[in-house]
């Protein structure tokens, strides 16, 4: 065998703490290695050319590149060796950057470690077998999870590109958080006026089928061929009959139901349509509050419904959708005020959250756009906004910035002045983060044109005094303690992962970070992909972001799906399990443990039973290989022999 070793300097990233020349010299002495060299940037075009030429010139049949993580460039180099005529699996990478040069400072130890890493890779590469992909058909339908602005954008772009889209939304109506906003920064556009037409497009698009008030129950399959089981939660109303007239809502005697759409700013009815522009405009019963469902007495809505749509017995329904790709746009959540005991922890009615204030400002909100104190309905004259209410606060486990609060506070301060001209707004802030186009100018307008008083410092305590709320904090520019008497306090509560985000990630087999936000494939270069092929991210599910960023990601994810679906066939990863039927004793323990049901029993002509792998289903985890007592089923590219060779190269043998 003729192995070539290519050691990368990665500029100074590797060469700074690894003696690459010595590593090349030492690895040249390894068995099977006929050529070993080092190069400034192996991944660059000349670097790759060097590999291709060396393969030809030195007649190499295996290649090892010692450079960065294979998670970064394995695919790049596989393509390189393939272009030079080798099978793409005749290649291994030794990770001498992330695992060596960046974490150790001792050059001698690092160099030795790098040589050993190459030795392991050589031991593995000489045992590599040629592997070939097979092609399989793609189901060109796409599932979009979440119908907020990011999900709707994805759905519309995919549908306009001719794909059939299945859009699943957890709440009874689409629109997400944006549908609840009054105006948007920095243009003061009316939020629902720009979102409404999109919602109508979604509802009417011939390629989009919408499952509102539905959740993902189960996902099976793999890129190109997913089976998704959707739970359509019962609204206790037959939506095929409901006309959205709203009669039921008017007559419902339960007047204290929690209004999820308005974040509890005012109570709603047990049967309700969340907001006037709701799509679908259908009524839903909140079982928790419904007298008929809880106590078996009432049924007023059923009596008044002319369409005869109310059905208290209606169960949840399940549909299975087959799709080839999935876009996850499941949005974000907000922390509970309970986490902020120093601000009252939700005990004071006149301390509210930013999104609640948004509903107070909104003309179609519970107060018809009149700003009123929740405690007594009076118009507040002095309003204090507290930014970073929970954000950037390690003590409650939220060290990150919530991204959009600085901007919406400026917007709310401006709108407050518009609504109540003789009002005074105060904004407590840590820093003003206004990095978008026109954003900084906007926060300046709030201060200079609308007279909002910005106080740089954190609020230490909020407490009631008579009818007022006292906001006590520090002004770090003055170096003094300040107290503001407020009629109303608005907390910019921290954005969090959406409730249930972790459970959904587990169904999708995608990763999430410690805060529950979904992890993209690469923070810079693959921001909307996940590590699971065929699953893409859009919007705040990946991290808090504002509307333009969410819309941008929605379109980006759609573009990824359109690119994926531009082919009719996909290539399967050939690094899957394979059975040596001569060695298989037919105990079928692998069938029991396969997480994907990808192994079936097969009867040979002699009547003997052996295991057999279904290639398109096998995902390549290798659980079967470590289950099989006789090593008859081997995960290709990670065979027992290969891993043993790596172990043996490290330990005495």
């Amino acid at each position, binding site marked *: 065998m003729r192995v070539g070793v290519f050691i990368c300097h990665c500029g100074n990233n590797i060469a700074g703490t690894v003696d690459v020349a010595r590593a090349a010299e030492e690895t040249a002495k390894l068995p099977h290695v006929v050529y070993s060299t080092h190069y400034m940037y192996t991944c660059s075009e000349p670097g790759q050319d060097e590999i291709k030429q060396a393969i030809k010139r030195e007649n190499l049949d295996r290649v090892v590149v010692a450079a960065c993580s294979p998670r970064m460039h394995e695919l790049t180099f596989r393509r390189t060796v393939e272009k030079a005529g080798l099978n793409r699996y005749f290649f291994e990478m030794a990770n001498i950057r992330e695992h060596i040069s960046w974490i150790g400072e001792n050059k001698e130890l690092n160099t030795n470690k790098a040589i050993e890493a190459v030795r392991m890779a050589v031991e593995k590469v000489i045992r590599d077998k040629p592997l070939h992909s097979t092609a399989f058909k793609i189901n060109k339908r796409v599932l979009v999870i979440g119908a907020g602005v990011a999900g709707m954008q994805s759905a519309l772009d995919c549908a306009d590109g001719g794909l059939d889209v299945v859009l699943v939304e957890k709440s009874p109506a689409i629109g997400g958080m944006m549908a609840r906003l009054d105006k948007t920064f920095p243009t003061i556009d009316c939020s629902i006026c720009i979102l409404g037409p999109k919602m109508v497009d979604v509802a009417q698009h011939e390629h989009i089928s919408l499952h509102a008030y539905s959740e993902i129950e189960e996902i099976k399959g793999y890129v190109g061929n997913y089976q998704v089981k959707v739970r359509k939660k019962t609204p206790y109303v037959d939506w095929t009959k409901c006309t959205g007239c709203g009669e039921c809502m008017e007559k419902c005697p339960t007047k204290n139901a929690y209004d999820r759409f308005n974040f509890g700013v005012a109570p709603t009815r047990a049967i309700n349509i969340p907001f006037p522009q709701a799509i679908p405009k259908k009524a839903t019963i909140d079982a928790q509050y419904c007298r008929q469902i809880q106590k078996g007495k009432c049924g007023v809505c059923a009596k008044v419904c002319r369409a005869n749509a109310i059905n208290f017995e209606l169960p949840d329904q399940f549909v299975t959708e087959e799709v080839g790709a999935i876009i996850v746009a499941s949005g974000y959540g907000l922390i509970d005020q309970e986490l902020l005991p120093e601000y009252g922890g939700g005990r004071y009615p006149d301390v509210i959250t930013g999104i609640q204030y948004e509903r107070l400002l909104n003309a179609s909100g519970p107060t018809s756009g009149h700003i009123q104190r929740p405690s007594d309905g009076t118009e507040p004259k002095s309003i204090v906004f507290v930014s970073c209410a929970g954000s950037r606060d390690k003590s409650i486990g939220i060290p990150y910035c919530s991204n959009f609060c600085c901007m919406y506070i400026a917007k709310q301060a401006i709108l407050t002045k518009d609504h109540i001209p003789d009002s005074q707004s105060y904004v407590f802030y840590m820093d003003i983060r206004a990095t978008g186009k026109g954003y900084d100018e906007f926060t300046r307008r709030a201060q200079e044109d609308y007279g909002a008083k910005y106080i740089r410092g954190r609020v230490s305590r909020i407490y009631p005094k008579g009818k007022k709320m006292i906001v006590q904090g520090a002004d770090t520019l003055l170096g003094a303690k300040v107290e503001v008497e407020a009629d109303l306090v608005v907390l910019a509560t921290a954005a969090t992962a959406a409730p249930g985000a972790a459970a959904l990630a587990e169904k999708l087999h995608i990763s999430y970070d410690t805060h529950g936000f979904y992890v993209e494939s690469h923070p810079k270069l693959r921001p909307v992909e996940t590590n699971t092929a065929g699953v893409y991210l859009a919007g705040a599910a990946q991290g808090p972001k504002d509307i333009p960023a969410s819309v941008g990601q929605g379109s980006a994810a759609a573009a990824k799906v359109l690119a994926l679906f531009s082919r009719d066939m996909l290539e399967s990863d050939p690094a899957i399990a394979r059975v*040596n039927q001569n*060695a*298989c*004793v037919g*105990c*079928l*323990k692998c069938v*029991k*443990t396969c997480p994907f049901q990808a192994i079936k029993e097969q009867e040979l002509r002699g009547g003997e039973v052996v295991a057999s792998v279904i290639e398109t289903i096998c995902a390549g985890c290798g659980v079967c290989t470590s*289950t099989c*007592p*006789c*090593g*008859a089923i*081997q995960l290709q590219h990670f*065979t*027992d*022999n290969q891993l*043993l060779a790596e172990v043996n190269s490290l330990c*005495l*043998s």
Partner: protein
Amino acid sequence: MNIEKLKEIVRTVLPSVDVVIGYKKGLDALHPVPCFVTSPDEIDALVLNPACTHNLAAYLPSLKKKTAVVVKGCESRTVVQLVQEGLIKRENVVVIGVPCQGVLSARKVLNAINHQPVVEAAFENDAVIVKTRKAETRLALNDVASDKCLTCQYPTPVLSDHLAGEQVESKVDEQAAYQDIRQFDAQSLEERRAYWLKEFDRCIRCYACRNACPMCVCRESCIAETRDPHWMSQKATLNEKMMFHMIHAIHLAGRCTECGECERACPMGIPVAKLKKKINMEMKELFGYEPGISIDDKPPMYTFKVEEEKIEEHKIR
């Protein structure tokens, strides 16, 4: 152990099966051998006594016939485990159970009589009388029983279609089932290491333990011998010997029915069954699982729970 009752059962069962596996007299009275009965005139050759030690269930996976098999308590667990793992079909097996008070360790008997050739042996309820040319020795069964019998929890077969004899209760409290293992565990790490290095050093890599094991079903594919995958070399070094015994023990995790055949077969007298019993103890502790008790169980290594009640995340220190 009622031979007459057994013969009667075999007589009624034989017409409905291809073969009945029992024991017949062997080299001497201490060494009965397996016997494959296919016609009624062979029935009288059957013997049944505490010297009948082979686990006859070991033949089942390779026989493609309808078979009746004579099993004691521990061996019935083998049948259950084989069915549970799908290695044999329940409908192809007629289980003739024999309640058992313990079997002899031929090695212990021979040690007691100074390795004199055995002329004759007689069996009483709790003793064996061994006659050599020079003497007649009465040995208490407890003193010469196999180690496995001293802590046996299942003297009556857990599964049988016919039972040759009365039910026998276990003489050992459930708490004491693993007392030998706990005692061994009480030694220091160095003592345990020295013990096993000494034992493994005597291994001659003959694989008799593996060949005797009824749950070792890999046949010629056993990874102790294959080149692909190439787990072990043929070198007779101590680490390779140890590796082999670790492979055997770990492949039996949650599967060993404690029939003790591995240890009985070992020509060097290495206590290899102890390794498997230790893992069984941990399986019971971790998953409340004992191999070979119920056909519907799942072997614990081939299943999981999302929340494992007994497995806690380990700290490095």
